[in-house]
């Protein structure tokens, strides 16, 4: 099953039209992501990194090029891809359980399995005990965990994260980074995360894609080979410097 879920992005070009003038957002993006990888995409704002995620998840199909998942082109959203947005986008009128369960509404699964999956997903993100809470009663970090649970409950082959920790304070951020690692290691899901925090990218990823803006292109792809995930270690700092240098380039 492993190689089957490879994500292949081939020569993807995306252009918005603003006032009849074409505005290139993504130019000739090619990237392959292999099962089990944790790929971070970093880049200045306006480099089209979020747009790329929207194309992968299937919210936007006006582009040239190909996006293949396991060999077949993605065609609209599907259960094989889950996304977490920067704003949690939970529905305020639903409880945590109902929000997570809504992700299974469209899937043909027996009711007991749905219940079990929802319970598992909530436990996985560490929110057991808050099942009946509404989003307004959750802290920012908890709401983002809930959004991750909603994405994971469908057991996607690829989890897409669009700056999921961008709106959190540093303490919550560090905590959630570790939670993300735990989830990734436990589920062995492929993760593609957009971020503008280089340290976060180095800490979490197996590969870092550096993008440059106007139009959005891939500048470099840097493999992360660290001895340990230690933010103070020399190899960690060196790698961080290298990514920053590429960004500034």
């Amino acid at each position, binding site marked *: 099953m492993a190689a089957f879920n490879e994500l292949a992005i081939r020569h993807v070009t995306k252009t918005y039209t603003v006032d009849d003038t074409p505005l290139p957002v993504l130019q000739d993006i090619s990237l392959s992501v292999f099962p089990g990888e944790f790929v971070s995409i970093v880049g200045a704002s306006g480099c089209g990194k979020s747009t790329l995620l929207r194309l992968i*998840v*299937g*919210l936007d199909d006006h582009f040239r090029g190909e996006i293949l998942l396991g060999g077949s082109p993605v065609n*609209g*959203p*599907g*259960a094989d891809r*889950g*996304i977490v*947005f920067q*704003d949690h*986008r939970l*529905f*305020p*009128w*639903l409880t945590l359980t109902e929000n997570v369960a*809504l*992700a299974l*509404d*469209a899937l043909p699964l027996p009711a007991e399995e749905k219940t079990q999956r929802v319970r598992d997903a909530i436990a996985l993100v560490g929110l057991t005990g808050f099942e009946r809470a*509404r*989003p*307004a*009663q959750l802290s920012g970090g908890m709401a983002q965990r809930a959004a991750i649970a*909603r994405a994971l409950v*469908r057991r996607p082959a690829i989890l897409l994260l669009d700056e999921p920790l961008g709106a959190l304070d540093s303490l919550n951020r560090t905590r959630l980074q570790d939670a993300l690692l735990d989830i990734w290691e436990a589920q062995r899901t492929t993760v593609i995360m957009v971020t503008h925090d280089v340290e976060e990218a180095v800490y979490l990823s197996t590969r870092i894609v550096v993008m440059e803006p106007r139009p959005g292109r891939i500048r470099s792809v840097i493999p992360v080979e660290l001895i340990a995930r230690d933010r103070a270690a020399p190899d960690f700092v060196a790698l961080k410097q290298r990514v920053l240098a590429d960004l500034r380039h």
Partner: protein
Amino acid sequence: MSHPQIAAALPQATIRTKRVAWPRGLILPVVLVLGWTWSVHAGWVTGPLAVHAEQLLLAPFDDAAGREIWHAIGASLLRYITGISIGIAVGLAFGTSMGLSATTERAGGGTFHALRQITLFAWIPLLTAWFGNGEASKIVYIALSAFFPVALNTTTGLRNVPITYREVSRVLSLSRRQEIRRVLIPAALPAITIGIEIALISGWIGTVGAEYAIGNGRGIGTFVSEGREQFRMDIVIIGVTALAATGYLATRLCRRLSSLALARASGLT
């Protein structure tokens, strides 16, 4: 003539908000009523316009014309409920179809927004020509005054559901039906509730307006206009007071209901 109506409405407020120890809002109306009673008794004000406050309190019970007020209140309420029920139901149906379907919006939106510009009272001559000078015209008029706010708020509420919510329902591959039921309607609920709230108020104004303008049959509006014709100021004041009190209670009730609905929609309950 508007002071007694405040005085009649306010005691309700003090009963409902138990925590207010000293209802300061009562000072002004009480002073006004006392001043009025005193000036009538002292003979400062004379003539048919000078009505004794006691006379007002007794008229709904011991005066033949005054006792009619109870029937009038009942008739008005019944008419109000019938009218707004029709108006709200049709408004919800129409607003939902315009809010959910761009085709319906394109087809019916122009007409709807053009008709919405017509002052409600301007409908009366047309309605009486179509439905006659009786109950049907009044009901249609009340329904109309409830229809517009509900239809408008339902449409805009559904149209203004944030794109971010719609994207979530797409990402979760919800069917159109699931999206409407689980996402769009709950998200539009606050706007719809406000529309209904406005409809309850404008429906009450419509009820009295229709009774007053069409002027036959029972009802508070008719009661007031008859009192005026017979120069019975006590009847007029009783009518206005009943009008204010009933309208106030209806508004109060729907505030309670809508704040419940709003709290539920924002997940604060």
